[in-house]
């Protein structure tokens, strides 16, 4: 297969117009499922409304649910009506629906894949399309190896055209632990090359997450301060006020560490701590992220006891409503040891970050929903205002707010008006909502478009996934050895007191988002 985009193309240089995908067919495994309905169909529709899709696009749903083409189109229409950020325009939807097909099939039925291949061939020949195929695995992870193997068996892991492409999008979780992640990567690589595999972490599609790199590397004033000389510590918070929302079986097998830390929080950490890449290109960016993940100091059993805290939420109140404790949620065994909260302290052993603690915390049923990264700077070296200054003057703090109030805030001291010098902490706030009124695309829109184009910058690479799992695995092993009771925290609070003690040992405290 010739990768057409690797040919030197002088007309691409400097072009501000974004690349549009070539005509292709998207095949969604698990097309009857929740992810397809809530995210994929609305994303495809919005991309079409915003003129990002090529004129010729076909979508094949592949799932066990018995539908015909017409019923499938109706399902898609309903999901767009319910979940799309832009209202359904019947004319535009008809363009999308015209290329929609459905195969009722079992994921491990070889005959179904032969039917899929025949359908793809007939679409290609009837519409004179290049053999560009985008496979999306929106299925339970246990089917990933099966589907990949079956696609390989019928030759759909390579394009029938020398200039065509075949790509595979894989949803998280990428494994349950390091061993299963290695096994899954091995199974996918039996059939697909790494360059064909797009592991999706929807956090990377968020505008504000991408803005971390823009903020750091497109502005000259922050990067000189972005190191151990000026930064005291970093706090990364992913707080949810929701509980497990009917996903008891899944969540009890996963827990906060696997569900949030291994993927989203490790990505945030890597983007905050990485060195400047040589270019904003897939491998250049991902090389630097992997270096950070590999530089995280491994945690010994003692470190895990000292520097990680896990907990489960107890009953409490969220926005005035009483909510049950984790162990009383449906499908959760009463003796479950699955964590709904984790706080941890990590060190990055490299030149830039030596000695700067990174505190990570995430949890369900916390006081409010907030995802943010707070970078606390060291205090001014000489406080000559000390005689008259207010004693509670806080050190400078830069907060990158990912959600829900996307923006950036810088905390600093300012003189209180009056004849004597008094200093008060004030905030300089930038809010996306007030500076950019344009409606931002959903994360899935951006990521789908990138996969259609073949840009894997915002997708996680094999070694990223494995490095993150290596850290998480060590924590899981340490916890498995610990037989003591798991701390709890009242729903609607900011977590257990043990987490406060974890950060207080270094003389800091968690900030309140």
């Amino acid at each position: 297969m010739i990768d057409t985009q690797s040919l030197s193309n002088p007309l691409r240089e400097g072009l501000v117009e974004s690349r549009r995908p070539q005509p292709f067919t998207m095949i969604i495994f698990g097309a009857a499922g929740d992810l397809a309905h809530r995210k994929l169909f609305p994303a495809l529709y919005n991309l079409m409304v915003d003129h990002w899709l090529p004129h010729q696009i076909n979508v094949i749903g592949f799932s066990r649910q018995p539908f015909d083409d017409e019923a499938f189109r109706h399902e898609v229409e309903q999901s767009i009506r319910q979940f799309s950020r832009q209202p359904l325009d019947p004319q535009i939807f008809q363009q999308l629906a015209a290329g929609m097909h459905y195969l009722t099939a079992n994921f491990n039925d070889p005959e179904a894949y032969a039917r899929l291949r025949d359908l793809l061939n007939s679409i290609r020949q009837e519409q004179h399309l290049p053999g560009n195929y985008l496979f999306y695995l929106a299925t339970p992870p246990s089917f990933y190896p099966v589907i990949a193997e079956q696609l390989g068996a019928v030759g759909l892991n390579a394009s029938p055209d020398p200039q065509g492409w075949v790509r595979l999008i894989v949803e998280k979780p990428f494994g349950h632990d390091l061993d299963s992640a290695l096994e899954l990567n091995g199974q996918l690589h039996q059939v697909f090359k790494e360059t064909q595999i797009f592991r999706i972490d929807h956090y990377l599609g968020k505008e504000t997450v991408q803005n971390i790199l823009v903020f750091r590397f497109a502005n000259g004033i922050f990067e000189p301060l972005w190191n151990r000389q000026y930064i005291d510590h970093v706090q990364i918070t992913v707080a949810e006020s929701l509980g497990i929302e009917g996903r008891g079986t899944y969540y009890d097998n996963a827990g906060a560490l696997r569900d949030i830390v291994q993927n989203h929080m490790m990505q945030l950490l890597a983007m905050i701590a990485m060195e400047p890449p040589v270019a904003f290109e897939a491998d250049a960016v991902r090389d630097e992220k992997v270096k950070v993940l590999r530089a995280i100091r491994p945690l010994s059993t003692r470190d895990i006891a000292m520097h990680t805290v896990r907990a489960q939420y107890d009953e409490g109140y969220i926005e005035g409503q009483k909510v049950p404790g984790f162990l009383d949620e449906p499908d959760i065994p009463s003796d479950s040891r699955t964590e709904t909260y984790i706080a941890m302290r990590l060190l990055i052993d490299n030149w830039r970050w030596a000695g700067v603690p990174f505190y990570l915390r995430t949890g369900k049923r916390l006081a409010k929903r907030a995802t943010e990264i707070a970078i606390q700077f060291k205090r001014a070296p000489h406080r000559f205002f000390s005689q008259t200054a207010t004693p509670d003057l806080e050190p400078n703090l830069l907060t990158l707010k990912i959600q829900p109030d996307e923006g950036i805030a810088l905390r600093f001291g300012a003189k209180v008006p009056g004849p004597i010098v008094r200093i008060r902490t004030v905030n300089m706030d930038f809010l996306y909502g007030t500076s950019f009124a344009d409606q931002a695309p959903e994360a899935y829109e951006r990521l789908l478009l990138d996969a259609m184009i073949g840009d894997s910058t915002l997708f996680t690479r094999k070694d990223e996934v494995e490095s993150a799992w290596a850290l998480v695995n060590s924590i899981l092993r340490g916890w498995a050895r610990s037989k003591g009771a798991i701390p709890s925290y009242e729903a609607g609070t900011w977590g257990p007191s043990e987490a406060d003690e974890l950060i207080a040992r270094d003389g800091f405290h968690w900030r309140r988002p």
Partner: protein
Amino acid sequence: MESETLHWEHPNIKGPELLRLLRTEVPQALGGIVPVTATVLTLGLYVKGIPETDWMELAEKISHVHPSRVLIINPVTGTAEDTTTHVDAQISATVTYRRRGEPPTLFSECVQMNLRGGLANHWIDVVQSLIKSDLPAYLLWLGAPPLPGFRWDLLSTGFTHLVIDSEQIGLGPWKSAILAGKPLGMAVDDLYWQRLGSWRAHWATLADYPEGLSAITNPDKIVIGWPSSHSSGWRLLLGWLIDRLKWTVSDIEPNYLSIINDYGQTIPVEIHEANDPSFTFHHDAYILSSQSSHKELHSRIMKETEELYTMTDPCYQADPVNDIVKLLNRGHDQLFDFALASLIMNDRD
């Protein structure tokens, strides 16, 4: 997020009074609360001599997307300079409310200024003081280009970008502005160049294919069909190709150009009048033809009589609000400067 738009009218005021009103009216309307200002840019719309347009409506649509101060500059000539120097102003301000207890945000302001008397000629003096400091400032010049001797030096101290639309009157009348603005640090942007981005992106995609790449980058001959009323279009596209492909122009005639490629070979370029814009690249047995019609840009690559590949993309259509919103999002496109330098500024048109 809730928002409200406040409106005022101030006939017959002096320039400094307008600045004072902009500072004081919104806090007064909010009961003495000074709002947080979200403005990220200043946009001037120079509309002299264009009748029957609701500029405030257009300005409000643009400022709804980009938090900005939009200044509608309408010099009204024909009145005696020494007696009637004043401004008839309309102001609108959009204020947003995030949460109870937090100060409101002044999201955008639109100011229509009908400048009379001496201010009709010296409008830059009034506008200078209304431009937000340290933020990008664009001037979209919608009227006839200024006459020779215009004070670009004064204008460029306030506006960082001059925006033109060469689809209307071509690039020729703007050459002096472009030449004057550049050394003063004022970028020139062209909305027609931006709309032609659909052609550039389309060709870049075609050049991802070996046959497309060969046909566009190494042609034996180029044939251009274009409406003569919008001739800056083919010039801008050809200028872009000349710059990107490191070609040089050896001869320019009204309907013919001669180009030398980087191997020293001559590429003849024929231009003829056509209703629908088109470019055709001939390369050995291959022909790549691109034509714009009915809001679509359609290309096909042929090898003799065999059709190898076709591609269709939407073509950007002129839309005053969308055009300017998109330009403000993207900022200045350096490729426009390069395209100008490689063909247009040497052209006699």
